[in-house]
């Protein structure tokens, strides 16, 4: 680890480090994983680290928490590049990548204002499709496509 990162985000003894998050999507990742709602675990994050691949990246560290695959894959929408380091006793014991799921339930809002999901209390549902190399969502109800640019995470 480089010196500057050590200073900005302190090391954790046990838990998960989520690295390589595009800086502009840091808060989306936090809200998708519900990190702004948890009261027990220590959560630290840092953003605007220089990254060759992403330009600016963010890092989140969550103490004493290990995510299930299904939770991790939810962040594929906003941070498909993210890498997870599983930490035990200050050591990285496992590295995991985000896998883009084929279906997304809840989490995102359909961009079509005339969609039934924006007019009644309905849990949104999308098929994940590829649009010009980017992840996009095809609404299972109105069949319209919501692309990255219009992606809105439901709070």
């Amino acid at each position, binding site marked *: 680890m480089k010196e500057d990162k050590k200073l900005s985000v302190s090391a954790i003894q046990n838990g998960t480090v989520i690295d390589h998050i595009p800086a502009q999507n840091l808060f989306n990742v936090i809200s998708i994983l519900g990190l702004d709602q948890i009261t027990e675990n220590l959560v630290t994050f840092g953003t605007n680290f220089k990254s060759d691949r992403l330009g600016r990246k963010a890092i989140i560290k969550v103490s004493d928490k290990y995510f299930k695959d299904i939770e991790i894959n939810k962040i594929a929408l906003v941070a498909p590049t993210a890498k997870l380091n599983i930490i035990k006793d200050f050591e990285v014991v496992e590295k995991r990548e985000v896998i883009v799921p084929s279906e997304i339930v809840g989490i995102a809002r*359909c961009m079509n204002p*005339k969609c039934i999901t924006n007019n*009644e209390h309905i849990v949104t549902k999308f098929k994940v499709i590829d649009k010009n190399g980017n992840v996009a969502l095809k609404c299972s109800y109105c069949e319209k496509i919501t692309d990255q640019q219009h992606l809105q995470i439901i709070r």
Partner: protein
Amino acid sequence: MKNKSLVSIDDYSKEDYIEILRVAAEFEKNPVQNILEGRVVATLFFEPSTRTRLSFESAVNRLGGRVIGFTDSSSSSVSKGESLKDTILTVSNYSDLIVMRHPLEGSARYASEVATVPVINAGDGANQHPTQCLLDLYSIQKTQGTLENLKISMVGDLKYGRTVHSLIMAMSYFNPTFIFIAPDELKMPEEYKLFLDKKGIKYEEHTELAENIKDSDILYMTRVQRERFADPLEYEKVKNVYILKNKMLDGTKDNLKILHPLPRVNEINTDVDTNHKAYYFPQALNGVFTRQAIMAKILGLK
């Protein structure tokens, strides 16, 4: 198909289309059959569409079934603020099948998840209207004797027209060639052209009507609506360009048939109506046979 809702045209396979058309032809030969006796079909029209509703109700009546429902949401509990879910759950108790039309997109898919009886989508906003597509297929097969290898010209609003989009998807199983004729503002969207490219289906794009219909088997006309244009001047420029006149049909193929989902405004001149190539009114009649077939298959009666 039995007990399965029909929400989107791709809920059905090629084999399903062929089966529906076979049963529709049976109903055309023998339209009055009492197979729906004792059954109740609910027609829930959250927005008015007289033509579609009458077609469904005629189909039910000819099969000896009963119809309940409403013709627009102002006369129903919806106007009191009832949720779609509650309306659908309630009506599920009173009927064997729900036919619904709703201004919001995706409403029919949602209703089909909530309902305890099958749901037929009779139009959900600009999204899907699968029974229209199946009656178009029936009309094409009936007039051409086949669905295979046809040249189909589509004219007018190809950007927003849900009927042309559904027809492209459905016809893609039958090796068609498409001719898209539309103003630049209303061109066929990229995603449909990509779909055709992927399936290896040929298509041409033009802005001129008369000179691009000469070797077509089907001429599918749609309305060019003023409200689709951001700039009213653009509408004024093209509004009279996509009007079919009888004279334009000189030199077209003898088997050419003109289809239109109706209602038309002015995009087909009335002088075309008496031409034997005009088929939009018989097309509407085919809608009754096709809907008889769809309901009979879903209720497991055919």
